[in-house]
């Protein structure tokens, strides 16, 4: 005991009693395995009581070197990597990558493929926003919504399974279209989802939108102005909650989004409540988009699920075994001997968290010379520590869940 007392006295470490208020700051290490952070984020916070004075974020705890791997893989093998970027909405990443390569190769997609892609991408957006919004609710103390709406993620997974066979890391589609046509069960499941999901979403909204506890916890917390958001290169629902109507689907339409009629919801104050509302409204808009796409599909010639580009689109396996020409194409594509232009291309899609960009440099080799992912979570998250200043710790936790930072996308 003596040694401890000596140590304290010699180092001038203050000893607190009831009578002298604590004036020193406390260092709090939040993460990287803290349950409230839903992932591997570390923030070392200086706390004055419950209030955060300053913070430092450390990331990279699941750095997997995507960009380095991408330099060693042919184009079609990069799709599984993009799955694992934002794994809450992998189809958007898959198709973003496919569209990047299609842009490089100047492949024009048939309208039906575009509409099928819109359906899958909007389903993915819904599943992404379900995670984020239910987790905001969970962190404010409402567990029910999480258990309730997660059921609909299962329904979306079932649709994915019909289309591609996988649930989460979908690897859906190919460069040049889909690997197979949507079957009747898939369409039936989409129609069922379109019927059931709005009911559940309305119920979810009626639980939270005007819930006093929820509003008290979220409204006016972590307000961000549009100027700051743009200064920090925010994108996606976070930027729209501050009032900037920047949506890649509108400003730079891809996959025939220009054919659709949908609104871009914006907030006013950029606080957590606005982000929640923006995401909710986007789910409604996604439902609208899927409905429109289902309607448009009726006017398209059926059973077209890929572009007619045998140079780049893998032939069906049964033909590879029986048909010489198909075998040659298969060999050429798999061995990476396709003639892609030596060029650089940037293509962006609106991911679940914002602008997901692919900057691809091709030098004519088997693999990309350089592939850079513009990852919205990474760029959005850097404001977390600065904006936490002056915030209560419990608010900072909800702030993190409302930013929907996905570790895979953050660390690449």
């Amino acid at each position, binding site marked *: 005991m003596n040694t401890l007392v000596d140590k304290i006295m010699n180092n001038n470490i203050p000893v607190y009693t009831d009578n002298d208020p604590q004036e020193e700051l406390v260092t709090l290490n939040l993460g990287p395995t803290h349950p409230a952070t839903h992932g591997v984020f570390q923030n070392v916070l200086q706390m004055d009581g419950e209030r955060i004075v300053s913070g430092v974020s450390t990331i990279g705890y699941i750095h997997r070197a995507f960009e380095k791997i991408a330099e060693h893989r042919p184009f079609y093998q990069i799709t599984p990597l993009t799955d694992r970027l934002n794994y809450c909405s992998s189809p958007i990443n898959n198709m973003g990558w496919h569209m990047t390569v299609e842009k490089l190769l100047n492949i024009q997609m048939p309208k039906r493929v575009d509409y099928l892609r819109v359906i899958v991408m909007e389903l993915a957006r819904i599943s992404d926003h379900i995670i984020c919004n239910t987790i905001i609710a969970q962190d404010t103390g409402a567990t029910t919504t999480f258990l309730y709406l997660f059921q609909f993620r299962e329904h979306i*997974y079932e649709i994915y399974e019909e289309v591609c066979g996988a649930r989460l890391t979908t690897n859906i589609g190919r460069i040049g279209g889909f690997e197979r046509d949507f079957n009747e069960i898939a369409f039936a499941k989409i129609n069922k989802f379109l019927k059931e999901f709005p009911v559940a979403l309305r119920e979810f909204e009626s639980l939270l939108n005007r819930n006093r506890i929820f509003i008290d916890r979220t409204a006016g917390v972590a307000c961000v102005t549009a100027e700051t958001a743009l200064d920090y290169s925010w994108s996606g629902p976070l930027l729209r909650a501050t009032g900037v109507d920047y949506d890649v689907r509108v400003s730079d339409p891809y996959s025939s989004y220009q054919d659709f009629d949908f609104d871009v919801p914006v907030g006013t104050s950029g606080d957590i409540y606005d982000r929640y509302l923006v995401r909710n409204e986007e789910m409604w808009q996604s439902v609208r988009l899927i409905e429109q796409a289902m309607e448009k599909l009726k006017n398209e010639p059926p059973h077209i699920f890929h572009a007619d580009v045998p140079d780049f689109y893998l032939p069906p396996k049964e033909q590879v075994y029986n048909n010489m020409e198909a075998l040659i194409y298969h060999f050429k594509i798999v061995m990476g001997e396709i003639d892609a232009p030596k060029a650089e291309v940037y293509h962006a899609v609106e991911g679940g968290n914002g602008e997901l960009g692919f900057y691809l440099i091709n030098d004519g080799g088997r693999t990309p010379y350089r592939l850079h992912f513009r990852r919205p979570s990474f760029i959005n998250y850097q404001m977390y520590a600065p904006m936490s200043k002056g915030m209560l710790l419990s608010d900072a936790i909800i702030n993190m869940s409302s930013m929907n930072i996905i570790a895979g996308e953050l660390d690449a």
Partner: protein
Amino acid sequence: MSDIKIVDAPAGIEGSGFFATSFDKVIGLARSHSLWPLPFATSCCGIEFMATMGSHYDFGRFGSERLSFSPRQADLLMVMGTIAKKMSPVLKQVYLQMAEPRWVMAVGACASSGGIFDTYSVLQGIDEIIPVDVYVPGCPPRPEAILDGFGKIQELVRNESGRRRHSPEYKDMLASYGIL
């Protein structure tokens, strides 16, 4: 009436007013149905774990409703997702903080072997730093697979001898990981 099933009593000698069996069996039975998992979820597999916890698959049916986010109270460390080299000391620290008896389940290809990420920054399987009891393959494994892996853990727990953690083999095994 509810259709709740009750597990069978372990083998033993019973008679009027008494039932005798060994400690191993009773403790194993009790432990296997009240494992508290620590979900060490880093990436994609963590989302499938959320689905497993959700109402559809209902992990709670197996006696693991209560997730223990503190390693001190956890029995089972479920490592889900890629463990980068930067993360590995943290994982080891979490393992060391757990009290014996402790079990480890590597969920998914990354935790088991590094998966598709054979890179400079990713640990090629958590068994390089901590001992693993059950590996669940898949990228990510379906919730059914996670439940199956959990069933395997339950089986291990049920049949574990009460002296195992004191045996020299076990201590040697820990020592080979640098854990004393």
